């Protein structure tokens, strides 16, 4: 039953690509927002916090529809982006965008908590030793927050692997282009005789998620040892 059909392989490959791109593309913005929320003192901080968390509580179909309105071919930004050749609607890049948005709150939350846990007195000490703020960030804050940053990335990746509602609303369910693992499972459950395929992909999905969690746990432990905290 491990013999997968070419379509199933395509869905798995696409899912991995979408999740990887979504995660990598969110890293820098995620870190930036986490830093702002953890350390920033500015008006509208609560608003930014709410905005980031919105995809977590909105029905995914709403997020997907909002994406369609703004990044669709005739959407607010979509039309302008199409001019310069960047198209999201009904492309795998759109799936990556939807997954990135859906995973963003999870990523930012983990990163923010680990940044808040960094002992600011160490940063002060670094400054007295001559480190400018950017150097303090790169040599003290970032390495000490690394376990949380990693955890955030893994969470976002896992979320992207499982994202369904926003993706299917925004970019539909086109085999080979936007049909990720969950969409493929959904399609298989909708056709007669698709149960076996759905079960195969479900097992694959479980295995991938477990692997991601185990890898992150392993990395976190190794990091903790290196940081002298484990």
């Amino acid at each position, binding site marked *: 039953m491990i013999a997968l059909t070419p379509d199933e392989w395509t869905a798995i490959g696409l899912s991995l690509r979408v999740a990887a791109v979504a995660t990598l593309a969110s890293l820098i913005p995620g870190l930036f927002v986490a830093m702002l929320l953890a350390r920033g003192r500015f008006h509208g901080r609560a608003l930014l916090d709410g905005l980031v968390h919105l995809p977590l509580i909105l029905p995914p179909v709403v997020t997907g529809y909002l994406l369609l309105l703004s990044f669709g071919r005739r959407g607010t930004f979509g039309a302008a982006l199409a001019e310069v050749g960047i198209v999201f609607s009904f492309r795998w890049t759109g799936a990556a965008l939807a997954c990135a948005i859906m995973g963003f709150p999870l990523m930012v939350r983990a990163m923010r908590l680990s940044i808040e846990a960094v*002992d600011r*007195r*160490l940063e*002060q*000490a*670094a400054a*007295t*030793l*001559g480190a400018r703020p950017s150097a*303090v960030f790169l040599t003290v804050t970032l390495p000490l927050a690394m376990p949380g940053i990693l955890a955030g990335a893994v969470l976002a990746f896992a979320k992207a692997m499982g994202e369904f509602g926003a993706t299917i609303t925004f970019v539909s369910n086109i085999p080979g282009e936007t049909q990720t693992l969950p969409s493929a499972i959904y399609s298989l459950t909708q056709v007669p005789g698709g149960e076996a395929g759905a079960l195969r992909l479900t097992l694959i999905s479980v295995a991938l998620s477990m692997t991601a969690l185990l890898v992150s746990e392993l990395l976190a432990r190794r990091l903790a040892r290196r940081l002298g905290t484990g």
Partner: protein
Amino acid sequence: MSTTLDIDVLLNRGAFSLEVAFAAGPGLTALFGRSGSGKTTVIDLIAGLARPDRGRIAVTGETLLDTERGIAVPVHRRRIGVVFQQARLMPHLSVRRNLGYGRAFARGRSDGIAFEGVVDLLGLGHLLERRPAGLSGGEAQRVAIGRALLSRPRLLLMDEPLAALDEGRKAEILPYIERLRDEAGLPIVYVSHAVSEVARLARTVVVLEAGRVAAVGAADTVLRQADLLATQEAEAGAILDMIVEETDSETGLTRLSGRVGRLWVPRLLRSIGTAVRIRVPARDVLLATQAPVGLSARNILEGHVVSIHAFGEAAAMVQIDCHGVLLAARLTRASVRDLALAPGRAVYAVVKSIAFDPQGVGTAGPAPVEI
């Protein structure tokens, strides 16, 4: 005396207000006072970790802060090394890389001390490849001192660097701080609330009380001031300048003589006539209203009570004038009542221990010696 630090600042934070102005020269200047007196705030202000409401701070002639002229040099450009109460080492870096941390940012400044020199000075050679988590408190603090030195500061601030350590570790670090003071030629501002540390290390003492400068001057003068004894009850003691009079080879004791009278101490390998400075902790002075007999302690000084201050739950600090020299004795209030002590009353002070340092001026002994 050239000025290394010139500070005049004002700061209000809710109920706490700080208004401090003093100048410090080369050598080690102690900021001395009980907790809450504003010592750490002054350190933060000099380092740039806090901003005053108004004021000026200049170090070795360069203005680091002047609120009137709108000057505020950021922390990382002040070139002021700080050794904090806790070592604050980077947990993710080895000792070697912790030491090198500040050095990387000081590149281009060729003056100052070499890596090997600091490692030798602080005895860090065997620790270089270790992680901070594996260091003892004393070792970590030595690494923190080395790290600050290697950032090539023009002034070193030490904020109670020994406070978090036990007596053994303190004794381990004190000689290194002395070497720093004497060999590195780096001006140091040293925060402490321990008289013994200050008496041993400082050339100049600034006494802070409730955010104000209560006294400032040479260590021997300031620490001798009677009102200081009253304000620092827990650590109080008297500082006496004595002359070595003779050593009795039979008993192995050395006799010291001074205005206060004569005191016997364990054999001091010093020639006759040498000046020594000793410290008599208040907690090691007993009082008697009659000449004591049948007592094991041999150092008994005659004097009269000058003042009595109650402090703490049940304690009292009694000041005694012995031939014009002030001694302090720490008693219980019950004893004060039982002996009917009052100003003017003639008493005998029994000295149980003496801390002394053969080097004399500017230093006092590492630990009191029972006599």
